[in-house]
């Protein structure tokens, strides 16, 4: 594959990471809550879509190699993820009335519950959406880019969702209230913002985007009960890299982490081409920079960035 090919894969994978990162960051900044169940919320979205798609089927036509029924399933996946998150907030997090550390620990338990329920119903094996696998887009193959129409659909949908979120945050009343709450929760209440309501909307939006990310992750790879949890660390890395609490930082961080993840094989090609001496060092480095270590490399880069910018890409210099 060429650099372009890796970049294209990076764009697709980044789309999924960004969708996950936004929700984690929104809930962190507005509800003051590092939600460890966020990855499993993605899993819920994916499996809800799987069930829905199984039930509604193709529904006739297709866009970008995906039957209409898949988009219905996507919407249901988003909705179920949002509803489950709101229900969990209302039934568990809010009545518990504990501080942010208490919420964090509780959310780890919630993550296990989400996953266990899925595992009871679907088993722990991998599964796939019943969509016909596509060949790479012919016109792009000569450039070394091997992406399918499905990948285009993932990227396009993610861009649409991110643009939608941006418009919501900047130009709507709810968005301004969300930014105000993230900025200064006490002053938000003093100003008359009904913060509980805004928090619920934050859950709806954050979990909804996570649900979408989960559906796309299932389409990109496959579905498994651990799919979301496995991605959680990467998503946390993205959010921290971007500057924890900044939604736009989370987008940037998600993009970078996703890119780095998919560019790892390319890095290893580059390293191979470098005249590294002595030979044993070259061997060690080559063995380190392989796809198995893609996440580890992303974390190393996160640490390096944080050494230079301790508050992340979008973080304030001082708080």
């Amino acid at each position: 594959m060429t650099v372009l090919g890796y970049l294209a894969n990076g764009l697709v994978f980044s789309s999924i990471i960004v969708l996950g990162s936004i929700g984690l960051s929104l809930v962190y900044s507005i509800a003051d809550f590092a939600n460890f169940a966020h990855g499993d919320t993605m899993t819920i979205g994916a499996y809800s879509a799987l069930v829905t798609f199984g039930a509604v089927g193709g529904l006739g036509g297709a866009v970008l190699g995906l039957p209409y029924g898949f988009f219905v399933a996507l919407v249901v996946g988003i909705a179920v993820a949002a509803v489950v998150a709101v229900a969990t907030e209302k039934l568990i997090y809010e009545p518990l009335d504990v501080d942010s550390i208490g919420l964090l620990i509780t959310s780890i338990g919630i993550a296990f519950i989400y996953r266990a329920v899925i595992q009871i119903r679907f088993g722990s094996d991998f599964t796939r959406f019943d969509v016909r696998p596509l060949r790479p887009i012919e016109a792009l193959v000569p450039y070394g880019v091997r992406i399918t129409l499905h990948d285009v659909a993932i990227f396009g949908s993610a861009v649409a969702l991110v643009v939608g979120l941006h418009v919501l945050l900047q130009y709507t009343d709810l968005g301004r209230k969300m930014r105000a709450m993230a900025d200064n929760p006490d002053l938000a209440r003093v100003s008359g913002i009904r913060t509980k309501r805004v928090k619920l909307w934050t859950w709806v939006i954050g979990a909804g985007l996570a649900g979408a990310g989960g559906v796309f992750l299932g389409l990109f790879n496959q579905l498994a009960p651990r799919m979301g949890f496995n991605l959680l660390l990467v998503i946390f890395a993205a959010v921290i890299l971007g500057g924890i609490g900044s939604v736009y930082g989370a987008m940037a961080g998600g993009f970078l982490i996703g890119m780095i993840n998919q560019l790892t094989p390319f890095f290893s090609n580059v390293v191979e081409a470098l005249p590294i001496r002595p030979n044993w060092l070259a061997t060690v480095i080559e063995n380190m920079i392989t796809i198995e270590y893609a996440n580890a490399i992303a974390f190393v880069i996160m640490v390096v960035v944080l050494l230079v910018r301790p508050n992340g890409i979008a973080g304030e210099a001082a708080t």
Partner: protein
Amino acid sequence: MSDGMTDDTTGAAEGPHGGTDPVLSLSSVDSGYGEVQVLDDCSVRLDPGEIVCLVGPNGAGKSTVLKTAFGMLTPWTGTVEYHGRDIGGMAPEEIVREGIGYVPQTDNVFGSLTIDENLRMGGVARDGSLEEVIETLYDRFPIIDEKRGSKAKTLSGGQRQVLAFARALVMEPDVLLIDEPSAGLAPNTADDVFEDVKEVNDMDTAILMVEQNVTKGLGISDRGYVLDQGTVRFEGTPEELLNDEEVSQLYLGG
């Protein structure tokens, strides 16, 4: 002497707004943070159109009076009444809707929002269009008018204070609680802010304010309370408080 003075003025019959019912009153309030009691049988009243200044040593409970009046703390005992209605323990976001505004001492603007957005946030509880009231505020405070689109964190200390007032005024409250308007400001800027407080008051907004700068704070006030250890020790007109030897020596730094 001091007892006599308190008795004189609690009746407030001779006060500038004498004979009217208070807009806001705390009666025999105990209140505090968690287990720690700060206010102890504290009674404060604010009549329509007045400026009332709370002074006293650090830790006397001045800010706690404002926080209890505004629902950020629930009174343990005693009542908080607004126009005769008990509002003790109501949530701040609901008290705003009743007609009370609050300007915190620190972090009183949304730094990452623009001036315009700050003012819009001040009006979230208002029905209908905000444009008219916000334009009126821009006319009144040209210092922020010039910077509508800038982030609030780019404002100077004095400008921030003005924005904090303006944010609270979008609701057109008839009571404004202000916590140390001059804190951290240069003397000249502080004078401007006190001018603004007076101007806000001229718009028929009664003001209950906490102020460390006793002379200036009382200087623009109709009445003042001296708080110590969570309770009112003295009450009177600014002249009475500033000229009282005991008050001066004990609480106003001689």
